[in-house]
C-alpha cells in the first residue's frame, strides 16, 4: 500500500500511532512538539523560578511567592518540542545473507515502523543508510505523518552490499548530523564486539539516546541447511573457512550466535541503551508491538 511493505498494514499503522518515542534525556527540538525540551517554554510542566525583569509576561508572576517574600518572581515552564529522531539502517552485504531470511527487508520494515511512530508523534525523522547500493537518502529531516510514504519509496531501490567499518561509519554520520536526539541503529551486528562498542559508544558519548535493533535471520541463527563439508565465505570480507558441519557443530554454532547477541545486549544494558532482537522467522507486527519497551517506545 503506497509503497509500504505488506507487513505495515493499516491496522498495524493505527497501533503504531498510539506509540511514541521515549527518551531518557531531554533534547532540544526544531519546533513545537510533544517532548519536553531543555528549553524554557510555555508548557504546563513547571521548571523553575527567576526574579522578574521588566518586560516579562505578568501572567507568569507567582503572586503567592510575592506575598510571602515581597519579591516578584516569574514562574518558568519547560518547553515542549519535537524530537529529532535518527534511524540508521545497516545495508552492508551481510544484511543480504541468508537471502531467504529477508534480513534487510526486515530492517527496512523496522526502520519505517520506528519512523512512523516518530512522524505520528510530530517528531522529525532523518533516515540514514549505512553502505548498500542504490540512491542515497538525503541527510535531511522529514516531518509529518504522510511523509512515511515518501520514505518508503526512497528505500525501495536499496540493496544490501559492500563493506564498511561500523565505528568509522557511525563517526562520520555523527559529525554530519551535529544535533543530538534519539538514535535507532538497525543492524545484524555480526561484527567484532569491539567495533560495535566503539560505534555505539560514540553516540552515548554525544549524549544521544540510542536503541540498537539487531536483525538476525531465522535460519541464520539456527544454522539451518548447513550440513556436510562446507567452505564458508564471509559475505563482506570474503574470508573463507572450511568446516564440517553436523548436528553437534550446528549446536555449537547456535550457541556461539546466542553468545554474540548476549554480549551486545549486555553492553547495551550496561550503557543504558535500549536493545531489541528480531529474528526474521517470527511475526514482525507481534515483535514490534511486544518489544516496544525494549525499542524505547512507550504507549
Amino acid at each position, binding site marked *: 500500500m503506497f509503497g509500504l511493505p505488506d507487513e505495515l498494514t493499516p491496522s498495524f499503522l493505527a497501533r503504531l500511532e498510539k506509540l511514541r518515542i521515549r527518551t531518557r534525556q531531554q533534547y532540544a527540538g526544531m519546533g513545537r512538539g510533544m517532548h519536553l525540551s531543555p528549553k524554557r517554554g510555555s508548557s504546563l510542566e513547571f521548571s523553575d523560578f527567576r526574579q522578574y525583569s521588566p518586560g516579562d509576561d505578568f501572567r507568569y508572576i507567582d503572586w503567592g511567592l510575592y506575598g510571602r517574600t515581597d519579591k516578584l518572581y516569574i514562574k518558568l515552564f519547560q518547553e515542549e518540542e519535537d524530537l529529532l529522531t535518527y534511524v540508521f539502517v545497516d545495508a552492508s*552485504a*551481510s*544484511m*543480504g*545473507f*541468508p*537471502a*531467504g531470511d529477508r*534480513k534487510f527487508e526486515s530492517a527496512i520494515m523496522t526502520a519505517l515502523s520506528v519512523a512512523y511512530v516518530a512522524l505520528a508523534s510530530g517528531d522529525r525523522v532523518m533516515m540514514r543508510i549505512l553502505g548498500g547500493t542504490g540512491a542515497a537518502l538525503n541527510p535531511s529531516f522529514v516531518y509529518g505523518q504522510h511523509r512515511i510514504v515518501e520514505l518508503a519509496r526512497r528505500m525501495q531501490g536499496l540493496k544490501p552490499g559492500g563493506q564498511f567499518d561500523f565505528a568509522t561509519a557511525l563517526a562520520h554520520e555523527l559529525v554530519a548530523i551535529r544535533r543530538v536526539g534519539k538514535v535507532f541503529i538497525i543492524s*545484524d551486528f*555480526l*561484527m*567484532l564486539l569491539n567495533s560495535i562498542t566503539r560505534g555505539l559508544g560514540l553516540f552515548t558519548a554525544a549524549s544521544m539516546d540510542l536503541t540498537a535493533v539487531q536483525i538476525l*535471520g531465522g*535460519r*541464520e541463527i539456527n*544454522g*539451518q*541447511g*548447513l*550440513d*556436510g*563439508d*562446507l*567452505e*564458508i*565465505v*564471509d*559475505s*563482506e*570480507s570474503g*574470508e*573463507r*573457512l*572450511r*568446516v*564440517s*558441519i*553436523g548436528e553437534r*557443530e550446528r549446536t*555449537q*554454532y547456535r550457541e*556461539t*550466535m546466542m553468545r*554474540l547477541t548476549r554480549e551486545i545486549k549486555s553492553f547495551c544494558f550496561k550503557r543504558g541503551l535500549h536493545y531489541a532482537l528480531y529474528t526474521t522467522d517470527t511475526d514482525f507486527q507481534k515483535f514490534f508491538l511486544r518489544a516496544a519497551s525494549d525499542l524505547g517506545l512507550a504507549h
Partner: protein
Amino acid sequence: MGLLYPGALIFLALVPVLVLAYLAKERPSRVTVSSVLAFRALRGFRRERFGGRPRLDWMFFVEALILMLAVLALAGPFIWRSSNPIAVVIDNSASMQALTPAGKSRFDIAREKLDKALSAEDGDGEISIYVTAPQPRRVAPPYKSLAEARFELARIKPIDAPNDQTTLSSFLSNLAESRVSKVIFAGANALEAPVPPRIHAIAVGDAVANLAIGSFTLRREALGAEALHASLTVANFSPETHTLEIVLRGDGKEIARAKEPLAARETGVLEFQALPPARVYEAHLSPADALPLDNVAYAVGGSIKAVSILFISPTPADAAGLNAIPGVAVTARTPDAYTPDDLATVDLAIFEYATPKELPAVNAMIVMPPPGDAVFGLNVTPAAQVAIAGWGKTGTLTDSVNFRLLSLRGGEYFGTHPWMSEVIAGDGGALMLKGERGGHRFVATGFNPFPYLGKRNLPMSVLTLNAISYLAGLGGSSIENRTGQPWLVPAGVESVILPSGKKIASKPGTLFTEVSEQGVYEMIGPGTARTPRAVNLDDLTVSDLASTPALKIESASAGSSPAPVMEKSSLSDYLLAALIALIALEAVIVYRRRHRMAEAL
C-alpha cells in the same frame, strides 16, 4: 545360496576405493554467509584434523551399500528352492486324427485326459507344453497358471505329419532327465516298461480299423512319352477282408477307377496305365474309415510341364534332337550371340563347349567346358578316350541309366571341385559333377550327350532326360514329398501357397519347412507361373492304427523314485530393485540437501 559368477566379487575391492574417494574428495560446497564470526569457533574439516576420522555420513554408507549390492548382483546370487515344473507332451501327429469308436478323435481324448491330469496337480509350478510332430518342440514359454496352459492346449490341433519315433523317444527320455517334476505324455503310443518315474503316460492308441493309401507315384510309360503310369500302395489294417476301391482324378475329373480285395492286414499295389495328362492327380480310397487323411493321396505331373531350354553352343545344331522330347522347347544360340538377358525367359541353360562369363541366373548344364573356365572353376583334362569307372547307384541323375551300355569317346576329366560333387567317375577324374550355387543347380559333364538321339542311344538319352529333369527342378513323383519332411525351394520360386490357402514367402535354395499339411502346394514363380507339388502322409506305419508300437524310453533314472526338483532361483531381480530404491533414495537426499542449502542461502 550360491553365486553364479563368484569371480565378480573381486569388484568388492571397489569399496575401499570408494572410501579413499571420500577421503580424497576436495569438493566442499561453497556457502556464502553473512559473517564467519560464529563459524570460527567450529573446528575445521574432520579429516584435516590430526588423528581425525573421515566424515563418513550415512550418504557414504548408502553409496557403499549400492556398490556392494551392484557387485553382488553381478555375482548372480541364487538360492535353491524346490519347484514343481510340469512338462505336458501331447502327440499331435497324423495318427491322432483317427476317430475312435466313441466318436471322438484320439487327439480330443488325449486332450481331455491331459486336462484331467493337470487338474489333479498342485498347480504351483510352471507348465510347459510340447507337441511331438513333425519334431518335438515346446509351443510357448512355460505357463504360470493352469488356466493359461489349458487355453493353450485347447488351441493345439493335430497335423498331417507323422512322429519321428526315434526322436520322440529320445526327447521324452531327455525331458524325464531334465529339471521337471513330472512329464505327462498323452499320445497314441504307450510306453514300454520300465517307464521313468517322472513320466506319466496317457495312451490313447486303442486299436482302430483303417484302410489306407501308402505311396502314390507317377512315372512315364516310356521315356519322353506324355502318358503317365500311376502306382498306388494300399493297405487294409483291419481284422476283416475289405475290397478297396480307388478312384483317380486328374484335375478334378475322374480318369480311372480300380478295386482291390485285401485280406486283413494285407498290403497291395494298384497300377493305372496310360493316364491322360493332368496337372494334379488325386487318389481317393473307399470305403470311408477312421482316418480320412490316408484315404486321399496326391501326385502332380510335373515333368509334363513344358521346359524351356536355352542351348548355347558353337554347334547349335546339336540342340535339334532335344525338341523331340515332349514338353521341351529349345532355343539355340551361339556363344557370340548369347547375353545373360537371354536367360530371363528360360527354365534352364545348356552350355556346350562354352562357359558363361558370369554365374547363370538359371539352372544350367555345362557340357565339355573349355579349359580356363573362371566362373565355375572347372579343372579339365582333355582325353582322347574317356572311360567310366563308377557312378552313384541312387540319385536323380543316374536313375535308370544303364551305364554298361553307355559308350563314350573323347572327352575331358574334371579335377576335384570345391563345391560340385562327383556323379560319374572316370579313370582320370570325374566325368559328371553336380552342385548348387546361388540357389541354382548346375551339372557339368566331361562328355557330350548331344545331339539327343532318343531311343537310338537309350542310356545317354536317359541320362540326358535325368539331367534336364534335375535341372528343371520339378519332380514327377509324389514319393519324394512327405508331410513333415522339409524340401529345398527350387530356383525361381518366390512364394508357396499351402493346401490350406496360406501364402508363405520363400527363398530359392532354402529349406521349406511349412510341410505339416497333406495336399498340393503351389510354388509361385515370377509373374503368374505356378508349379504344383504334392505332399502326402505316405506312411503306412502311421496308417496302421490297429497296432501302435510302444515307445521305449531309455532313462538312467528308470525304476528309481523321482528326486525332488530343486531349481536355482535368482536373487538378482530383488537386488536390482533394492539398488534402484537406494539410488532413488540417494537422489531424494541429494535433492533435499541442495534444496535446504538453497533455502538457507
